[in-house]
């Protein structure tokens, strides 16, 4: 028994360390630059810590306008606490994500152990989560969802614990954490109540102990009270409504195209056709989230190289997931747990399935976490079967298994650390940091600095958050930014201090004096510029040209 406990602790510690290592290793350098989501939250967090307001002057906002994408508040506030404690570092924004990402490994251990009553399986599940590509990827990119998944996993773990221990602390704390998890990410505000209702239905016989009705009702009241402000924000704040509407599946242009095919139908049939098309399209979108090629091979979209990609889970886990499902289905006296696990997966895929993007893995991480648990179950049972076989077979299987897992993980690591920066640097607004630092270096030499963030490698798009990059890398005091920042009258124009972020029309703007223009070749083709005016060229990570800095002197 003692050996078992020691082994348990040592193994769990090793797995946790592994999880921490993969989430913190070279966190400053990979991803290679702060993305627009990171820079906006970091600068807003600093602004909150210094002034109590975001950079637009909103006092302690419950939703951050950011770059008009209206971010939930949790991650920014928690980063501001880290800022107060640790000071100003770029990596600061990534620390909460990496911490929560590491804690998920522990949470999965606790939940799996509680569900399956097997510490060996629980350790294996946490190991699968520790090395899961999606968990590592999202933990390292300051993604707020990680905190939500951690809190939610622990919350349900505590509720399960309560069922068997009947101690009030579990139910109070469990409900409290579930309520807190709802604040981390908007989709959690829908998913957690749904999953909680299903949980309460599944475990109704075990949960509703009438001798303990006081703590049951009080804890529920606590949950409702804690959630109320969130629902108030969601329902009353036009920004959150706007945010929800803009990402909903109805915004999908392909759905619009399909609907337009029915335009010649008479009005009654047209209504039926529209409703039918919407339902079919939503079902298709939802079911696409369960496509194995997406989950195991292509979902993380690290490269532009077709099917040579990385999925949220390692492809080697696929057969074990299938076997895990088989074992799970066959498991007797496990109906409630099976239903809970299935509900977790089916409900967890709803946000990704009902948004306008074909696949949004960041909205489905909680599902991938649970799929890792099932794959671990499959692996666990497979190993158990093999260990009952002959010694030679055991050795062959173990060696093959280890080689395949390591090979698959190395493939992911290579993709993440080497190929991903080359292939997708533009999508984290690379090289906006370098542009910002250069602009500040030349701050005193010009009357105004105009930056047009319309750029891209193979096709152009408008990079968002330019004023955040400029503000943060210039150590521009947030208090000053709150006063200075304003939306201009030009196309896509905003400005603060000497900086103007707007569309550049080179034919007109080249007449400006004592101005630094920063624009991409999409805006200013090289053949239209006097080469001597280009004082710096900025490159994407793969050395393709991203921007020119053009000096317009008197």
């Amino acid at each position: 028994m003692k050996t078992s406990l020691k082994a348990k602790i040592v193994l769990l510690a090793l797995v946790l360390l592994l999880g921490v290592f993969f989430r913190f290793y070279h966190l400053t350098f990979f991803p290679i630059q702060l993305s627009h989501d990171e820079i906006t939250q970091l600068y807003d967090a600093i602004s909150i810590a210094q002034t109590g307001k975001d950079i637009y002057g909103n006092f302690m906002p419950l939703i951050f306008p950011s770059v008009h994408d209206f971010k939930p508040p949790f991650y920014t506030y928690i980063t501001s606490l880290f800022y107060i404690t640790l000071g100003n570092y770029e990596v600061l924004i990534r620390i909460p994500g990496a911490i929560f990402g590491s804690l998920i490994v522990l949470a999965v251990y606790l939940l799996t152990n509680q569900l399956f009553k097997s510490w060996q399986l629980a350790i294996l599940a946490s190991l699968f989560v520790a090395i899961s590509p999606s968990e590592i990827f999202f933990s390292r990119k300051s993604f707020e969802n990680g905190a939500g998944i951690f809190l939610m996993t622990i919350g349900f773990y505590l509720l399960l614990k309560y069922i068997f221990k009947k101690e009030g602390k579990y139910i109070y704390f469990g409900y409290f954490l579930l309520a807190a998890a709802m604040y981390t990410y908007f989709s959690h505000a829908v998913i957690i109540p749904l999953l909680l209702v299903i949980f309460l239905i599944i475990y109704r016989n075990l949960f509703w102990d009438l001798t303990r009705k006081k703590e049951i009702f009080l804890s529920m009241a606590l949950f409702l009270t804690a959630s109320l402000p969130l629902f108030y924000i969601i329902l009353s704040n036009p920004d959150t409504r706007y945010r929800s509407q803009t990402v909903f599946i109805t915004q999908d242009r392909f759905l619009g195209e399909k609907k337009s095919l029915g335009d010649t139908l008479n009005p009654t049939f047209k209504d039926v056709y529209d409703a039918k098309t919407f339902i079919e399209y939503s079902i298709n979108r939802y079911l696409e989230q369960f496509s194995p090629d997406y989950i195991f091979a292509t979902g993380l979209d690290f490269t532009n190289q077709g099917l040579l990609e990385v999925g949220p889970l390692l492809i080697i886990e696929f057969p074990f997931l299938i076997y895990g499902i088989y074992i799970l289905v066959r498991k007797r006296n496990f109906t409630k747990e099976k239903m809970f696990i299935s509900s977790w997966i089916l409900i967890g895929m709803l946000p990704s399935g009902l948004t306008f993007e074909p696949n949004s893995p960041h909205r489905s991480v909680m599902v991938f976490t649970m799929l890792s648990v099932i794959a671990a179950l499959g692996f666990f049972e497979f190993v158990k079967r093999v260990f009952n076989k002959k010694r030679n077979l055991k050795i062959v299987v173990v060696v093959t298994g280890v080689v395949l897992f390591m090979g698959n993980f190395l493939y992911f690591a290579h993709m993440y650390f080497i190929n991903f920066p080359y292939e997708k640097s533009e999508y984290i607004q690379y090289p906006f940091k370098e542009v910002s630092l250069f602009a500040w270096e030349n701050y005193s030499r010009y009357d105004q600095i105009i930056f047009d963030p319309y750029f891209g490698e193979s096709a152009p798009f408008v990079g968002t958050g330019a004023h955040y990059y400029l503000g943060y890398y210039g150590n521009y005091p947030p208090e000053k930014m709150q006063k200075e920042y304003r939306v201009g009258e030009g196309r896509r124009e905003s400005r603060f201090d000497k900086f103007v972020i707007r569309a550049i029309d080179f034919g007109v703007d080249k007449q400006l004096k004592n101005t630094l223009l920063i624009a991409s070749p999409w805006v200013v083709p090289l053949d239209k510029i006097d080469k001597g005016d280009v004082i710096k060229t900025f490159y994407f990570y793969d050395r393709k040209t991203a921007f020119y800095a053009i000096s317009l002197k008197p």
Partner: protein
Amino acid sequence: MIKIFPILLLGFFLRIIFISYPPFSIEEARFAFRGERLVTEKKDELGRTLPFVFNSLSDYQLPVTPYLTGLGILVFGKTDLGARISFIVLGTLIILLTYLVAKRLFNNEDLSLFSAATISVSPPLIYLSRIPNETIPLLFFTLLLIYLFFLKGWSIFLIFVALTLAFLTSKFAWFIEIPIMVILILREKPSKLKIALATISLVSLIALIFLYYKIPQSDRSISENVFPLFNEITVLNAINRLRGQGIEQGMPVFFESLLFNKLSFLVVGIVNFLKHLSPALIFGYFDQTGIFNFSFSGLLPKILIIPLIIGLVDLIKSKEKYLFLLPTLVVFLFPAIFFYNQIIHPLLIMSLPVLSIVIAFGLKRLNRSFQILVFFMIVFEIMLIFFINKSAEIKNTNLVRPIWVEAVVKDINKNMDQRIYLSDNLTQDPIPFLGWYGYFSLDNEYSNIIFPYKFHQTMIGNVTLIASEAEFKGCIDKKNSYLYLSQRDSLKIKEMLNSEKLKVDENKKILGVEGKIFYDSLQNPQIYLIKDSICIK
């Protein structure tokens, strides 16, 4: 047994109702045209006498489908019914065979009926049973083969016939049939005679492939259409690119070669295989292009997702001896591994009988009222497909199933006494449509092409196709020349008129005024008719 008849009747009804729908695609029109020629003239569209290997846009075509199409035309003439009836009949017989196979396998009437009912309402089976194609005969012969395998004595010869016909229907059969026979042999422990037969079949397949390889360009046909993955330059480029990025970052070349090498093709193949396991294909959109299915339907009606899940759970929990069904699914789908980033729809359709049996397990577990609800939901979905979606479908398949081409061809037919020129981009290959919808006397000018691989005809009867590089000239005095011009050629002529490179009668300068304009299903102008004023240089 008597209970299967209403299901067969329903299946037949769904396959024959609105007989002209869907309009033909290029290859289907080619099958119909070819079938007609085979039964009327004993020649194919190129003038070759009763050939064994045929032409198409993408590959050589095997003989069963064209001759089957011809069989219907022989009975019902050159009509929609004639071109489609063989497939309607085979599509209906697939329902019966599913019932019989399920009965043999499980000896359970309800289960067999549910399986047959599921097959009868599968949208792609309804759809494909209405058009000439390879998938329906292949599925029919495969099911027949499985059914015959369970019979005793006299069936041995028939098994061989069914297998040979399957091999001569589609190249997918070359991959699928032998593993299926192996599974059957392993499961059913049949007589030595059947094992011998399986061996003979394998040998005959090898012989068939050997003979196929004797045909000119057959290696190209196989590598481009059966193993296209290995020709995929995208994968090779990706391997080099990803490897190069690592080397640039200072990683050892050996390590890079270990991660990205020829085995990456296998990884890509496996990923393509995994694509076929998406539930969205089964219950969402199966084929949005409208070639293999109604564009907005899945492989099965949506409500059947519930019995499918229940059936799977039921199989895993309590019917371990029937779990062989799941590897059978893999056998049907595994040729997908040889393709790159592409759904191979016929493979999924081939797997339908297996899916239908799993669903039948689920349906059996439902109570009667839920079964009735499922039935009504299916009826509702199919009614929507036929009555609400139809016009949207025609618009969606405007280019792959160009129903509007028929009007152009009919107009050409009215002007048979003229010399006619037609833009060759009317569709990707206009000849099959001209052949099927029109009435041309052919002089078999291509009969010297013995093995036509991806061959494009440029004329049929008195119609000559206008190539993109063709040049135009005015021919004021010359009459009897009708030009059916696409946007491409009409714009070219407009430009020539504007730049005065082309001079025609002043009254005939403006395209579309003097002649007709033909519109597509989206009401976009597609063809302009110019009479007697412009000639091809």
